[in-house]
C-alpha cells in the first residue's frame, strides 16, 4: 500500500518552472531521502504535498484517496481537504513552534482541538513521546528556553502526536549548530527503525545514506537519479549528481 502518491507534478512561480513532471510514490514504512542543489525544488515538492502550495498539474493522493487530480486539463482539489491533514506531518527547518505556548501545549493542542481527541489521553501520549526524546522535564518550558536541537525534537513530537501516516522533513538540521544536529538525526533514525514512513530533505549525505531505503536526487525541477542509497552514492550514474556530490565533498 502506498501512503503517498504524486504523479506528473508540475508547479511554477510565474515564469519559474520549479517542478517539471515529478512522480514520487512512497510505500508504508519506507524512508526516502531527497537531496539536490539549492533551488532544485525540493522544498516546493514537500510544500505541494502538504498543501502549502497549490499544484499546477498532476495527481496527489494519500492512502489511495485523491486529494488533487486533473479534470478537463485543470487541477482540481478535493472539496474537503481536512481529512487529509491527519495523514501527514511536516517538520520545518525553522521548527515553527508556537512561542507563546509551553512545549506540552504546543504538542497537545492540535490533537485535542483539531482531532477532537481526549485531552487526558493525548497528554499521556505526549509525555510518553517526550520521554522517548529525553525531553520529559521540558514539558512546561517555553520554546525560547530550549536549545535549537531540543526545539526541533519538540516539533517532531508535535507532528507525531497527530499520528500521521507519513512524516515530511524539510532540512530538519540545517538551522542547527553542528554540535546539535546529531541529537535530531538520532531521533529520526530511531523513527526509521520503528518503520515510520518518512520523506526527508537533507544535506547530510552520510545520514541519507545510512537511514534511507531510497535516495532521490533532484536538480532543475526533475528527479535526475534515484534508488538504493548504496547504489546511488556508490555508483552514481548522472554527471549532474556526480558534480553535485563533488562540490558537496569540497565544502
Amino acid at each position, binding site marked *: 500500500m502506498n501512503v503517498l502518491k504524486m504523479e506528473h507534478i508540475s508547479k511554477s512561480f510565474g515564469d519559474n518552472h520549479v517542478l517539471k513532471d515529478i512522480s514520487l510514490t512512497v510505500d508504508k514504512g519506507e524512508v526516502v531521502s531527497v537531496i539536490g542543489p539549492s533551488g532544485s525544488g525540493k522544498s516546493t515538492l514537500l510544500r505541494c504535498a502538504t498543501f502549502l502550495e497549490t499544484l499546477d498539474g498532476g495527481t496527489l493522493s494519500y492512502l489511495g484517496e485523491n486529494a488533487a487530480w486533473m479534470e478537463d486539463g485543470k487541477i482540481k482539489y478535493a472539496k474537503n481537504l481536512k481529512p487529509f491533514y*491527519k495523514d501527514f506531518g511536516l517538520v520545518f527547518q525553522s521548527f515553527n513552534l508556537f*512561542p507563546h505556548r509551553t512545549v506540552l501545549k504546543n504538542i497537545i493542542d492540535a490533537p485535542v482541538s483539531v482531532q477532537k481527541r481526549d485531552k487526558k489521553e493525548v497528554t499521556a501520549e505526549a509525555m510518553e513521546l517526550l520521554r522517548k526524546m529525553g525531553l520529559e522535564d521540558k514539558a512546561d518550558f517555553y520554546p*525560547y528556553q530550549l536549545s535549537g536541537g531540543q526545539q526541533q525534537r519538540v516539533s517532531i513530537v508535535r507532528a507525531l502526536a497527530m499520528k500521521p501516516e507519513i512524516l515530511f522533513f524539510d532540512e530538519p538540521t540545517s538551522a542547527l549548530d553542528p554540535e546539535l544536529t546529531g541529537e535530531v538525526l538520532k531521533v529520526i533514525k530511531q523513527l526509521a527503525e520503528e518503520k515510520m514512513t518518512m520523506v526527508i530533505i537533507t544535506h547530510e549525505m552520510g545520514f541519507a545514506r545510512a537511514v534511507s531505503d531510497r535516495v532521490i536526487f533532484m536538480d532543475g525541477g526533475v528527479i535526475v537519479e534515484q534508488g538504493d542509497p548504496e547504489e546511488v552514492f556508490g555508483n552514481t550514474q548522472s554527471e549532474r549528481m556526480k558534480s553535485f556530490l563533488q562540490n558537496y565533498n569540497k565544502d
Partner: protein
Amino acid sequence: MTVSKMVLELAIAFEQTILIFLLTLIGSLPLGLVVYFCKKSKVAPIRWITELYISIMRGTPLMLQLMVVYFGPSLLLHISVPSNWRFMATIVAFVINYAAYFAEIYRGGIESIPQGQYEAAQVLGYSKLQTFFKVILPQMIKRVIPPTTNEVITLVKDTSLASTLGVVEMFTKAKQIAVAPKSPGMLTFLAAAIFYYIFNFIVSAFMKWIEKKLNYYR
C-alpha cells in the same frame, strides 16, 4: 469658590472624562481589528473604502471630525438627533478615529508574525479561525502593546477635545470654573493638569503591567 470646592467639581466632571476614555477603548480596540480585516478583504471596494476611511481619520483633525459627526446628521442628512447626541457624537467620533489608528497598529503587529507560524498551524489542520485566535492574535497582542500604550496615553489627553461639543467633562468644567467670578483662576487649570497627569500615570503603569505579564515568552 474655594479651592477644595473647585477640586471637588473637577473630580465630579472627571467621571465623564473616564467614561469617554473607557467607552472609546471598548469600542475602538475591537473595531480596529474589524477595520484591519476590511483592509485585508478579498473584495476590492471594501479595501478601497477602508483605505480612504483610514487616511481621512489620520489626515484630518480629530476636532473637525467631532464637529462633522455632531452636526452632520442634522445639517447634511436632516435627521433629528437624540437629546444626548452631544455625548454620543463624541463617543462615535472618538471610536471611529481611534479604530483607524488601532487598525494600523494591529497591521504592524500581525504582519511582523513569521509566515512559518501560519504554515505550522495549517499543517496541523487548524482552521483559519483557529489559527487566528490560537496562534496569531495572542502573539499580535504582545507585539502591539508598546504602540497601543502611546495611543492610549494620547487618548487620555484627547478626551479634552469633547469640550468642543460642550460635553461637560473635566476640561470643559475647568474652563467654566476658571472664568467664573471669584474662582481660583489659573489654579483650576493646574488642578486639571494634575488630574490628567495622575490618570496617565496610572494608565501607563497598567500598560506596563500588561507588558510584563506578556513577557513570559519571547
